[in-house]
């Protein structure tokens, strides 16, 4: 680490464990993923740990596997806005980030919902704009259709453009509340937008919210997605979690900013990250191994294999060798999930070779090839690793994905956060009240951020 470079602050966010096999439901400590209490616990823990924000992912259709609802992972989640607004009542500083699709929502409604969340939380709202959709998800919505990939990002960009225009539409001195003169508000101008996706003319129903614009996150990894993120987002949620891939992605995203007239610090890169702690490195490894076996039970191992093989493999022994039949080429065996393999035959070949070389059973192989644990070690080791990622520009921080609901973050907050603080890489108190303050982002209507401006500490 170069001594001329100022130490970067690590940004941390808490992902509520969701509907995938990372989330271990079979552990006795695993509680409801739907009762409000669970959300309160994780959010308060994150706030106790001085995290930037709490994060909810989204999925608008239940996953299917082999033509039936997938029943092995956690299923069931609540409405994002309802949970975040309710959490605003039991937290004070924590940012509240919701993943909301731009394909099955209308911009006026989203603008109103996010502005409401920002008002009701005192400036803590964030919107993770995703486009992911296909005809499968569309079957739950009246729009009901499939948007081509490029149209999805066109719609996303226009959705954000309209929302921002609406958020900005009340001029600064509109709200008067002059009782004697009998003027509540001056004329609220109509916002007009005519684009390929929307033809809208409306007066917005809310004054500018505390953050001006809720913080915008983006998750989506195609070239279109990256351009949209570089042009629009305040932070990127990414899956590029290894040191190498992280640095490449980081450089790529920051490199795209200049053409949109944006500075290096105006976009934060926040990969998803899992963690396992132990008192010793060996103990952490042992716990990690145990968790991997919980995450990939025998049935889950077969289901993973079926995703690549494209056929029913329920007759195979998860503790036995890989099937000798060839993949069918059908990659739509699992629907409602980000696709596992683009070229199933090549993946099957590679998996077979690996299993033979290392003498792995089906379950052992799946445990190896789907491993996503980045940070395994003692609290000091994990803090060291996280800090290394951030100081060497593989990330600006992480969105942590605990494997347990709702207590999965407790240990991290109790043991890793103090280590990070000791290193001078993490705040010891919140410097401001809004999520923009936490992320060091400037208010959209002002030129200075809290870190550069008068409020810097």
């Amino acid at each position, binding site marked *: 680490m170069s001594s001329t470079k100022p130490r970067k602050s690590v940004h941390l966010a808490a992902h509520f464990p969701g509907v995938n096999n990372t989330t271990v*439901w*079979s552990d006795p400590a695993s509680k409801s993923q*739907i*009762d*409000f209490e669970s959300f309160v616990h994780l959010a308060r823990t994150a706030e106790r740990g001085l995290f930037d924000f709490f994060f909810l992912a989204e*999925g*608008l*259709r*239940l996953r299917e596997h082999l033509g039936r*609802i997938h*029943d*092995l*992972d956690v*299923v*069931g*989640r*609540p*409405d994002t*806005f*309802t*949970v975040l*607004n*309710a959490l*605003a*009542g039991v937290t004070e500083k924590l940012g509240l980030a919701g993943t909301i699709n731009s394909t*099955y*929502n*209308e911009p*006026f*409604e989203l603008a109103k*919902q996010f502005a*409401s*969340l920002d*008002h*009701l939380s*005192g400036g803590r709202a964030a919107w993770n704009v995703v486009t992911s959709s296909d005809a499968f998800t569309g*079957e*739950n*919505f*009246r729009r*009901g259709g499939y948007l081509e990939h490029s149209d999805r990002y066109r719609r996303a960009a226009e959705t954000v453009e309209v929302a921002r225009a609406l958020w900005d539409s009340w001029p600064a001195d509109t709200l008067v*509340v002059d*009782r004697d003169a*009998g*003027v*509540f508000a*001056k*004329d*609220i101008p109509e916002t007009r937008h005519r684009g390929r996706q929307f033809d*809208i*003319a*409306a*007066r917005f*129903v*809310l*004054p500018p919210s505390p953050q001006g614009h809720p913080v915008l996150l983006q998750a989506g990894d195609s070239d279109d997605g990256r351009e949209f993120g570089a042009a629009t987002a305040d932070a990127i949620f990414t899956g590029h979690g290894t040191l190498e891939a992280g640095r490449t992605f980081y450089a790529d995203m920051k490199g795209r900013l200049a053409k949109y007239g944006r500075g290096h610090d105006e976009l934060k890169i926040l990969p998803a990250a899992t963690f396992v702690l132990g008192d010793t490195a060996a103990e952490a490894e042992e716990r990690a191994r145990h968790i991997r076996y919980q995450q990939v*039970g*025998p*049935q*889950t191992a077969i289901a993973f294999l079926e995703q690549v093989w494209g056929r029913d493999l329920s007759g195979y022994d998860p503790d036995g060798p890989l099937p000798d039949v060839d993949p069918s080429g059908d990659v739509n065996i699992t629907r409602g999930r980000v696709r596992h393999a683009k070229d199933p035959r090549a993946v099957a070949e590679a998996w077979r070779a690996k299993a033979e070389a290392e003498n792995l059973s089906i379950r052992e192989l799946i445990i190896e090839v789907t491993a996503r644990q980045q940070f395994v070690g003692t609290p000091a080791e994990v803090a060291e690793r996280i800090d290394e990622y951030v100081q060497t520009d593989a990330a600006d921080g992480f969105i942590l994905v605990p494997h347990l609901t709702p207590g999965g973050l407790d240990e991290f907050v109790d043991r890793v956060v103090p280590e990070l603080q000791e290193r001078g890489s993490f705040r010891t108190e919140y410097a401001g009240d809004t999520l923009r303050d936490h992320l060091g982002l400037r208010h959209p209507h002002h030129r200075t951020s809290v870190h550069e401006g008068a409020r810097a500490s």
Partner: protein
Amino acid sequence: MPDSDFFLAVELAGTGAHPASWRRRDSRAEDLFTARYWVDAITAVEKAGADAVFLPDSFGLQPGGAATAQGRLDAVAIAARAAAATHRIGLLPQAPVTHTEPFHLSKAIASLDFATLGRAGWEVTVSEGAEQAKAFGRKSPQEPAALWHEADEAVEVVTRLWDSWEDDAEIRDLPTGRFIDREKLHYIDYAGDYFSVKGPSITPRSPQGQPIVAVRADEGPSIQVAVRRADLIRIAPPDLDAAHARRAALRSALLSADRDPDAVRVLIDIDVHLAGTAERAYEELAELDRWSASGTAPRSGAPAATGSVLRHIGTGDSLTELLAAVSDSGAADGVVLRPLAVEATLRHLATAPPAPATTLRERLDLPRPPSRYATIQEGTPS
């Protein structure tokens, strides 16, 4: 307050139902877009012993221009924000269905039911007129018959989605590795004139099973939707005789629709303004009327043709007497008080001993319905 099976609700329309209410010194109009304002108001209503609070909403600005309080927070958001601060009161945000997706609404209200441990409801509304249609730019303004036909379908979709998970669908069965029993999750396969929705919901069945559905039914096609769908029917009659007649008509319509009239509550709107003395209350009302050009509050959601509505101007005590009289008269199963000036009236509402914390359904003495899909046998969907 009247006896316990008489339902008492309060509707919180910004600073008040009177368009000039924000001009009162005590209106807290500056706070209208803060959580504090709404949480204070809703907890005050809860302390008064009311059974529920209604929260109006729309995608349009309030009519009346600069002299009216303009702007509104999302009502479902307000209800959610107040969830943890309240413990007994039912929360009934309005949500229009004309431009929104029933799938989103279904999970929003079900999630409110989870966050409140069973105190959620939904007042179904429609978005009338060109202004709101242009805010979405998706379709032309519709006639009331079409709007309410669409609303009827939307309620069907929402309530099917609420049932799409059976209560015991989550099994966490270790030996088979199954988190859910997928036989207890159901595609709703709805196909109508306005919507086709596959289901099931992404949200499990909520504490009440079916959160409470309210519909305003003064005239026109909304009445049929109320009769087919509502647990609570709101009407705004000019007097108690008219209330009597409408309730009787609604009850026979419910019978004709094969519904139990005793399982539906008819609530009448009463505009109220309270002060320390009746004289003072009248003076304050006169001041509100002087401030506002028209002197009569435009009533959101109610047909303009209704003309006069029930009003009570007086003290907390005289309101208590009025409510007892309404209860005894049998003209209604409950009331929705609409404070003309929220802060003033809340200050003068009597406080009541805390009611037991129950679900909104239990307060209404309505049974928790089983999922419509749960009783299906031999694979014959209804």
